[in-house]
Every structure is written in structure tokens, then in C-alpha cells.
């Protein structure tokens, strides 16, 4: 198929529909509004449900209902709205409901601004809602990858019965790039997918068995039972950690002098700087986590070659992922951090300057 020039927000929405998402609930917020608007326009054309909810709280609870009914369902928002979804995300994880949540991050805290930022890393990867749970979190760095992640997110959600978040930012949402779309699932494929969760989800009781009774629930009042439930979740998370980390290596070799780590939009700016410095005779490797939960700790540790003097982390926040990098590096070499915040994005020149100072 030929490539289409599209904004990230629209591309991911189109890809979600292609992946068989037929229910979408959300509340408008910049910089993700093109996403909700695309869904408003396109969902009715494929016989799907688009509903503009009264709040992000309501939207995520509609997702809880639709996911509980076993159907592919998605919501999207930007940072302040994701905070409102935190309660629902905890319930979704507790009740083990598959769904996709997109965060097109903006500057915070509070109302912040509407420019790109990565300040929700902690919220996405370390909780956000209450209780002991994990979301699978994918961090795209191009419009193409943002779109590809829609179907991957739904597949992971279905496979593990767990909510999956795509952690993008205002830059990716707004920017236009050429995208290749995977073929759309047919109505028959979607219908077949709709049956995959019937061992536990809400659905009509076709054979009229009077014992039929499914519960979509996160409440376990007996601590003995709740401990078992949380342990089961923990075992599931361990399996996800073992099998589902994703990352990208760029110029990683045994002669690397510096190892740079960055994710999402930030990694693109960093890559330009790394290219320029390597052309000037330096040897810098770039490690980009694609899943930020589960975090690719071991894969990152393996990239610290014999000549690496230090690891440098660049983020559009005051230093959040750097904590995971430190866990991976485990004191082997010093870990440095620099970031910009408030919706300000660093330039390749600024990154170059920071890296040059290391030599």
C-alpha cells in the first residue's frame, strides 16, 4: 500500500480502527483533539461506536464496561485527562480488562501547557492509579511507529488481559509523516475476535445455562483471596517482563565511548546529535526503549561496552526514566541526565554541546 501523509493523532486512530477497534470513548483535550475528531468522523462509517463522554472519568468507565463485554475498546487523552482516568485504570488492571489508552502528553504539572513533554513517565510506568498494578506502556518515536503500535497494543491487551497505554506526546500527535497502514481487519475477523473472551466476559447466555454467571470485578473483600489475586497479577506481570520488552539499538558497538538513552520524540532529536558527533569521529551509541514498562533493563545493561565512560540520559522532563536507566546500569559507570521541561524541546545543538563536554 502506498504511504499516506498524516498527523500522528489521526494515524493512530485510523490504525486502531484497522485493528478492529469498534468502540471509542473520550473527552476533548489539546493536543489530542484530532484523534477524538477523527474517531467522531470515521467510527460511524464502520458501524462502530463513538461517544464523547462527559469527562475522562466517565470515558474510562465506559471503556471498563465495553472491555468487560469483551470488545476492542480505546480511549485517548492528554496528561490532565489521564490523571482523571487513573481511578479507572486501576480498576481495569484489577479486573484484568484488555483495552488501549493513549496519552498524547503535554507540559505539566497542573494545567501546564499544550506543548510536547514527557512528564507523565512516572505516572504511566509506576502506577498513576492506586494499588499494585502495571500497565504495559509503549513509547513511539515516529508517526509510523505510533500507528503500528495501535494493533500491537490491542494484541498485547488481549493476550494478557491487561490495559495497554501508548505514551506519545504533543509533537508526535501534531506532526505529519508518511505512514504505511496494515490492512484493515474484516468484519468477519472482528466478529471472530469478539468471541475470544467469552470464557469470562459479559455476553448473552446463548445456551441458557442457569449457572452462567460472569463477574467483572476488582473487589476481593477477603485478604486471603485478594493476596492470591494480586499474586496472580504479579505472576502475569513477570511473564510480560520476561517476554515483551522492546527496544531499538543505534550504533551500538564495542568501541562506544558514550551510551545515550532516550525515548519517544526526545530520542529523535538526540539521534540527530549522535549522528553529527559520530561523523566528526566520536563513537556514541543510542539505546531507545520502546516498551517503558516492561523496561528493557537487561538489554540496556548489555549495551554498556568495555570503553563506555558514561551513560547520558535525555528526557523532556526533570529526570524520570533516568531512574530506570540507573537500575539497569547498576553503578557500572556514571549516569548523567539533562532535560528540558514546560513543553520546551531541546535542539540537536544543545544535545551535542552536552555530549561534547564528556570528551
Amino acid at each position, binding site marked *: 500500500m502506498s504511504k499516506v501523509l498524516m498527523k500522528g493523532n489521526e494515524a493512530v486512530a485510523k490504525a486502531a480502527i484497522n485493528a478492529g477497534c469498534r468502540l471509542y470513548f473520550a473527552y476533548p483535550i489539546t493536543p489530542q483533539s484530532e484523534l477524538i475528531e477523527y474517531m467522531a468522523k470515521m467510527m460511524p462509517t464502520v458501524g462502530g*461506536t463513538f461517544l464523547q463522554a*462527559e469527562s475522562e472519568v466517565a470515558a474510562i468507565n465506559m471503556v471498563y464496561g465495553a472491555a468487560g463485554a469483551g470488545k476492542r*475498546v480505546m480511549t485517548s487523552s492528554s496528561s490532565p485527562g489521564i490523571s482523571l482516568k487513573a481511578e479507572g485504570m486501576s480498576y481495569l488492571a484489577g479486573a484484568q480488562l484488555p483495552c488501549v489508552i493513549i496519552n498524547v502528553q503535554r507540559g505539566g504539572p497542573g494545567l501546564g501547557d499544550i506543548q510536547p513533554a514527557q512528564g507523565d513517565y512516572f505516572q504511566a510506568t509506576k502506577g498513576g492509579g492506586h494499588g499494585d498494578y502495571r500497565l504495559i506502556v509503549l513509547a513511539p518515536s515516529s508517526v509510523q511507529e505510533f500507528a503500528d503500535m495501535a494493533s500491537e497494543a490491542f494484541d498485547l491487551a488481549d493476550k494478557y488481559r491487561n490495559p495497554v497505554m501508548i505514551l506519545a506526546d504533543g509533537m508526535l500527535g501534531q506532526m505529519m509523516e508518511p505512514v504505511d497502514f496494515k490492512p484493515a481487519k474484516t468484519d468477519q475477523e472482528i466478529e471472530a475476535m469478539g468471541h475470544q473472551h467469552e470464557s469470562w466476559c459479559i455476553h448473552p447466555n446463548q445456551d441458557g445455562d442457569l449457572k452462567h454467571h460472569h*463477574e467483572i*470485578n476488582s*473487589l476481593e473483600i477477603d485478604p486471603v483471596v485478594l493476596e492470591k489475586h494480586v499474586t496472580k497479577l504479579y505472576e502475569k506481570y513477570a511473564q510480560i517482563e520476561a517476554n515483551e520488552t522492546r527496544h531499538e539499538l543505534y550504533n551500538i558497538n564495542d568501541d562506544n565511548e558514550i551510551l545515550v538513552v532516550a525515548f519517544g520524540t526526545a530520542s529523535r532529536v538526540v539521534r540527530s546529535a549522535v549522528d553529527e558527533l559520530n561523523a566528526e569521529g566520536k563513537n556514541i551509541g543510542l539505546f531507545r526503549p520502546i516498551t517503558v514498562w516492561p523496561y528493557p533493563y537487561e538489554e540496556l545493561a548489555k549495551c554498556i561496552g568495555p570503553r563506555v565512560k558514561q551513560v547520558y540520559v535525555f528526557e523532556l522532563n526533570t529526570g524520570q526514566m533516568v531512574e530506570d536507566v540507573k537500575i539497569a546500569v547498576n553503578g557500572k559507570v556514571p549516569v548523567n541526565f539533562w532535560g528540558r521541561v514546560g513543553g520546551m524541546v531541546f535542539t540537536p545543538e544543545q544535545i551535542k554541546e552536552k555530549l561534547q563536554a564528556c570528551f
Partner: protein
Amino acid sequence: MEVIATRPKSLRDVPFTYCPGCTHGIAHRLIAESIDEHGLINKMAGVAPVGCSVFAYKFFNFDMAEAAHGRAPAVATGIKRARPDMHVFTYQGDGDLAAIGTAEIVHAANRGEHISVFFVNNAIYGMTGGQMAPTTLPDMKTTTSPYGRKVDDIGYPIRVCELLDTLVAPYYIERVSLLSGPDIIKAKKAVSKAIQYNKEGRGFTFIEFVSTCPTNWGIEPVKALVWAKENMLPFYKPGVFRDKGAPE
């Protein structure tokens, strides 16, 4: 021996967790009987709230979801939109529906969402031990209004049927009482009508039950019924607020 009353098929053989004399059990039974009568047990899904009826997801004999506090109408919306061939209801207390979940109920009603809502108004937060609810009567004492509800400070109780009746979309809104035998017979008719409209896909239906909470009111069950008749019914007047299906 002739069996004249038995457990409705729509109720599972699980003991209720309610206090003796609590009206929640009556409301459950009316709903279950109506679902049986309309032959909907295999196409029904319910949403339980957070409150004393939090375990309702265990009691009804079809698929159930347990919602976060106040969010049942949004959860029901998600289920109904995902499974339009099913019939969906929520069961909610007054703290759940009229305080923390005010936005969700108003907007589900305003969308004319094709669900039934069963609203148990006992003028108090039962589950958490008797705190003030948005429906607590003026001057009524609760653990968080120990000097009585002061309306100058905290406002008047909310009459939810009247509030929802200002919206265009709802199909059927009725307030009933669970305070006496004859009232319960009337309540049953209302519940059955709501389920029937639900079956026929008519739109949003809402039944409020004027109820008691003997435990947290600190009044024994029979006296609680009398107290409620004298104090609740004058403020929460039973009646049909809206019935778009009624013969002209």
C-alpha cells in the same frame, strides 16, 4: 404442597449481606422477579455500585460488573454500547448516584442511554457507617452531621427524580416506596414496567426506591418504616414523573 413463592431464577443461591430489616433485599427481589417475568435472564447484565449493595454482583444470576463508586451509569453505557443485544441495568445507592456519581447519572439520562437505573434512597451512607448523604433530610443527624443537617451550610437534600425530570431524553421516571406491603406491590409494577421498556428498547428508565437503613438510622426495622413514612415520604413524594409509554 403447592409452592406459592420461591427464589426468582434471577437471584443466585447466595445469602444476602444486608442487615435484618434492610430494604435492599426487597429491591433486589422485585428486580429479579421482573427480569424472570419478562424472560430476560439470558440477555441481562447488571452493574453493582459501591455501597451496601456492592456485593449485588454476586447476587444476581446473570453477568454482572462491579463499578467504581458512582460510575455505574458509565460502565452500563459501555456494556450496552458493546452489546446492544443485551439489556443492562445499574443498581445504586444515594451516595453513589447523587454525590460522587452525579455527572455520570445526569449524562447517561441526558443521552437517553438504553439502560434501567434502580436507585435506593435511604438518606444515608450505609456501608461506611452512617455519614451524611446528599439525600439526608434537613436537621437529620448522621455521623458527619452530628448536630443535624444544617441546610444553610450544606444545602438541601437532592431530589433526583425531579432533577432528571428536567431533561428531555429520559423515557420513564418513577419514585416508589418500599415502606409497606401495598407500597411494595406498587413498586413491583414500576420495576416491571422499567424492565419491560428496557426489553422493548424504549430508552432510559429510572426507578427510585424510598428505603430505610435501620442500622445507621439507629432505629429498629419496624419503627424505621414508620419514621420513613412520616419523614421521607413528605419530602420524597412517590409518583410517576415521566412515562412516555403511558396511554394518552
